[in-house]
């Protein structure tokens, strides 16, 4: 400890500690960033209000009972009917067909990627499947109309040119990567210890998968499935091109139907003036669609949260 004769590099008085170091520009910028964030809240508010305003105006002219209980949807006729069920039936029919395809394919593919695939295969296969999700839906619609439906017409008797089966199957292929990816994450998250415990008891691979791993990943897989249904319900172009424009309350996949989304597209293509009931039907159907998908998304998020908590 020699004598302190050398002065420190910079004398303290040169650099005061009081005051703020953040210049005004920066503080304004921070406010701006917060504003960008709040934009998302504004968007939600915008969606809710646009849908609500027109829906309320709609129900001033059309009784709610008619909307909920009429079985025909013919808003553009001279004698209009406003029962929502044909559109809902069309949506559900195509979505269920899609899930009938996507669920087995997606789940089995997820099982392959998670339980069987060597690392290199997984690394190429997984992104390859993601590619399917990047294809614009109009391409799938073209495919459904021009390839799948004619193909099916050779197999299924009385299959109309516009039907629910073709676009349903194509939608299923489109959302398979979604189920596959999310289910695979869920399966992967199941602790190795669980699997090892089952193997140690002398169980074969397949029983371990179905008796131990899949049940453990169940809420995660359920979340994925519900999210996929939500996606199918909200899908527009595939059904707009290939399913038809005839609202029909039916569960026959061979005939033309119209989904909620296809209806919105159909009306938007015409000339609809603001303030008319026809204009408002766009928003009423949109509101019904929004509520359905929102409900499903919330359930899916809840399930996903529960899954994360349990692993």
């Amino acid at each position, binding site marked *: 400890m020699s004598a*302190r004769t*050398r002065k*420190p*590099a910079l004398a303290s008085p040169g650099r005061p500690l009081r005051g703020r*170091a*953040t210049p005004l520009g920066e503080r304004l910028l921070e406010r701006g960033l917060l504003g960008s964030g709040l934009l998302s809240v504004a968007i939600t508010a915008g969606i809710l209000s646009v849908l609500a305003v027109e829906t309320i105006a709609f129900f001033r002219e059309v009784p709610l009972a008619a909307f909920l209980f009429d079985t025909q949807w013919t808003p553009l006729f001279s004698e209009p009917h406003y029962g929502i069920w044909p559109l809902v039936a069309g949506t559900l029919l195509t979505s269920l067909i899609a899930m009938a395809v996507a669920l087995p394919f997606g789940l089995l593919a997820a099982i392959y990627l998670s339980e069987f695939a060597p690392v290199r295969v997984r690394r190429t296969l997984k992104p390859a499947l993601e590619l399917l999700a990047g294809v614009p839906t109009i391409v799938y619609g073209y495919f459904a109309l021009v390839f799948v439906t004619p193909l099916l017409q050779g197999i299924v008797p009385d299959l109309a040119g516009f039907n629910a089966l073709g676009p349903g199957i194509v939608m299923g292929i489109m959302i398979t990567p979604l189920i596959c990816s999310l289910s695979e994450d869920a399966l992967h998250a199941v602790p190795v210890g669980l699997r090892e415990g089952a193997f140690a008891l002398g169980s074969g691979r397949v029983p371990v998968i179905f008796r131990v791993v899949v049940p453990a990943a169940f809420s995660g897989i359920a979340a994925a499935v519900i999210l996929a249904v939500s996606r199918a319900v909200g899908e527009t172009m595939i059904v707009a091109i290939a399913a038809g424009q005839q609202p029909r309350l039916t569960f026959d996949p061979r005939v033309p139907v119209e989904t909620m989304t296809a209806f919105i597209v159909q009306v938007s293509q015409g000339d609809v003036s603001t303030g008319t009931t026809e204009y408002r039907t766009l928003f009423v159907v949109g509101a019904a669609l929004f509520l359905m998908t929102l409900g499903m998304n919330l359930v899916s998020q809840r399930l996903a949260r529960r899954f994360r908590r349990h692993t």
Partner: protein
Amino acid sequence: MMPAQELAAGPARSAGRPVVPRLEVEPALVSPDQATCQVKIAAHRLSAWFGAQQVLRGVSLDMPRCQVTAIIGPSGCGKSTFIRCLNRMHELTPGARTEGVIALDDQVVNTRAVDPVLLRRRVGMVFQKPNPFPSMSIRENVLAGLRLTGSLRRGAGDELAERALRQAALWDEVKDRLDEPGLGLSGGQQQRLCIARALAVEPEVLLMDEPCSALDPIATARIEDLIHELRLRYTLVIVTHNMQQAARVSDRTAFFLLGELVELGPTERLFTSPSDPRTEDYITGKFG
């Protein structure tokens, strides 16, 4: 043993008033061999929490100017937390808080009246694992502190970079490749680069949180040599879990245990004849 200093000013945390209270030292309590030495940075009754968990309990410690103060102790004793309080990095962690006083040159600095950003320009830090900025070259890394704060004068860059690199004993090794990425250096060189970067800002105090723990023995030796040179100009506070290192490089050593300052004194005395039995147990390797 360094006696406690009484705080003669107001409450530890001022509620946003611009007045900066002053810390007063009772001259009678200053021991003779420190008569000519001022305290550069000090903590008084400093406590710190992570959420509900208390990690520092009423630590009072002052670090004299142009000396090396080493802080030793077993894992979890709060030594890293302590120096992170000295430059107010501790408060960056969500849920972290402190009570007590931290003073730089007798000015209390952990009040709301003082912007921590300004404090950190006078109290620099070197981390355990070297963290040069990957998107920058060696020169850009050295000047990063000045550029980040917008205080780099035009044309002064090269000169400042050379000066800082020389101070960090790195100039000769990198002077021909200043434009190469900072990550291309060895671990020891990266750490000296981080030291150069900290020095370029011309701080008055340099805090080092286990600076050699990620380095090999040769690199460690070079940094210890560097510490010997740096103490002529800067006040250094070093956290280390390596007692031999503390014995080699420091003037004073503080022993922490479970968030408390157990013993403080000149290094030689602490290591050869510690007063507290806990210190003796730690030094002789009975635990930790």
